[in-house]
């Protein structure tokens, strides 16, 4: 009996991975053949990009503050508080800016995509769209994926910038250190590979957030309860995948550079 359950669960997981792969691949391919819904791309860019600005700016700024506070306490023991700027900038740009932005945007937008598309599925709006001769994959999924990829890229840059500013605020106003020194150390410590690493990650994270959110939304079954389940699954899966993929990309980037 238990073997049967394990067998069935394993098959379901393999089937879900297969379905997700085909789903995500179709969404990408749609960008290379008409019709392309540019208006929907712009609307989604506004919802994802402009709509997430406040949470990304705030989370980035205060993460920078915390990094500066924590690092100063440690660096003081070695008399190296002058490298706080370098520490904060490297950590934000290489790692935390992209990951934190990804997780914040995932919490806000993967959930909204899953619930919005899920509601459309259970109220037959997706079927109605197909009956009206419009492909929901092209109209709803592809614009969301590409809007999320492009917006996450810029949101990550903003998060990095505000993180560095947050670190500067703590360094100057709480630790009473020199601001110029903070920024010059931050600038001198940065290399092209660090920036590349920080800018490649949001491209993958944006793809994960939107494709997982849309996938769970479009596969919703079981009425309003199913919509809630899809929303939770989308946020959990996207958040975990962001961290897993971050590990893989970091390893690859460190090997390449």
């Amino acid at each position, binding site marked *: 009996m238990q073997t049967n359950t394990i067998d069935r669960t394993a098959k379901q997981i393999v089937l879900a991975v297969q379905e997700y792969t085909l789903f995500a691949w179709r969404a990408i391919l749609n960008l290379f053949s008409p019709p392309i819904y540019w208006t929907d791309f712009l609307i989604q860019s506004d919802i994802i990009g402009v709509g997430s600005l406040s949470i990304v700016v705030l989370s980035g700024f205060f993460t920078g503050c915390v990094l500066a506070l924590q690092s100063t306490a440690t660096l003081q023991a070695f008399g190296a508080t002058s490298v706080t700027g370098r520490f904060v900038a490297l950590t934000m740009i290489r790692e935390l800016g992209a990951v934190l932005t990804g997780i914040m945007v995932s919490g806000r937008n993967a959930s909204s995509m899953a619930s919005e598309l899920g509601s459309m599925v259970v109220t037959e709006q997706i079927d*109605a*769209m197909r009956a*009206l*001769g*419009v492909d929901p994959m092209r109209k709803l999924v592809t614009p969301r994926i590409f809007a999320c990829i492009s917006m996450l890229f810029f949101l990550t840059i903003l998060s990095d910038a505000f993180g560095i500013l947050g670190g500067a605020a703590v360094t100057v106003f709480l630790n009473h250190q020199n601001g110029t020194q903070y920024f010059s150390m931050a600038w001198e410590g940065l290399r092209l590979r660090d920036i590349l690493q920080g800018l490649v990650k949001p491209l993958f994270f944006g793809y994960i957030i939107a494709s997982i959110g849309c996938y769970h939304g479009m596969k919703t079954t079981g009425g309003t309860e199913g919509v809630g389940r899809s929303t939770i699954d989308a946020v959990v899966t996207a958040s975990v995948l962001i961290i897993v993929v971050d590990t893989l990309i970091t390893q690859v980037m460190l090997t390449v550079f």
Partner: protein
Amino acid sequence: MNDTLTPLFPSQPPDPEPDAGPVVALCGVSIAFDGPPVLRDITFCVAPGETRILLGPAGVGKSVLLKLVNGLHCPDTGSILLFGKEISRMPEREIFPIRARTGMVFQEGALFDSLTVRDNVAYQLIQESAPDDEIDRRVREALTFVGLEETFSLYPASLSGGMRRRVAIARALIHNPEFLLYDSPTGGLDPVTSTTIIELIVKQRDVYRTPSLLVTHRLQDAFTLCTHRFDPGQGKMVPLPKGHTAPDTTFLMLEEGRLIFDGSLHDLLHTDNAFVREFLE
């Protein structure tokens, strides 16, 4: 822009060609979803100008059958010909242009919540980039047809259940469909609103002679469709003389996924099938 800019509801209803093939033909269609088959070996067709009423209790697969006909589900076995084209094994992108020739009214209306009534009704026209003036004119015509001109700028959330169904009918009709599918258009509505919806369906049948497949479990609606006609002079639905029925309106009946009846109202009322008799009683 092509045929999308032709007037909504042409002044002369198209007469079906006498030797034209069926609009829809199903042969040996079966489908299952993670369990026992929902539909088994379904065979029937809809001729040009014909209205077929699909009866059956809740949960026998009526809505699934309707979605199969429109290519929204893919059957496990059997063939489905829509406008003479085999759609059961066709990739979805090739079905879209065929499906655009049909109009479908969903059970709860399935209006897009985020769009106004105008944008809902004009959905297909907007996708085809029709000019705004043309869209507004045709939407107003379609809304006038269903008696809801005043809802032009409203959102679906502010409409009653009956109004939502009527907007859904307007959306299905705006593109001059060659075949109409109604999925329980009166389900959950009060008798007065149900009669309004049935009157619209009778009007579409008798004035524009659009072939259709209508799913319902309400016998009263089915019989009204069969025993009434639309009188353009009076602008309303009137009963046919006693003993007469609409000749092109026939019945299908499902029981546990199987088609157990296919015939006229007379045949339905005089059948020996125990399930049909029980359903009628």
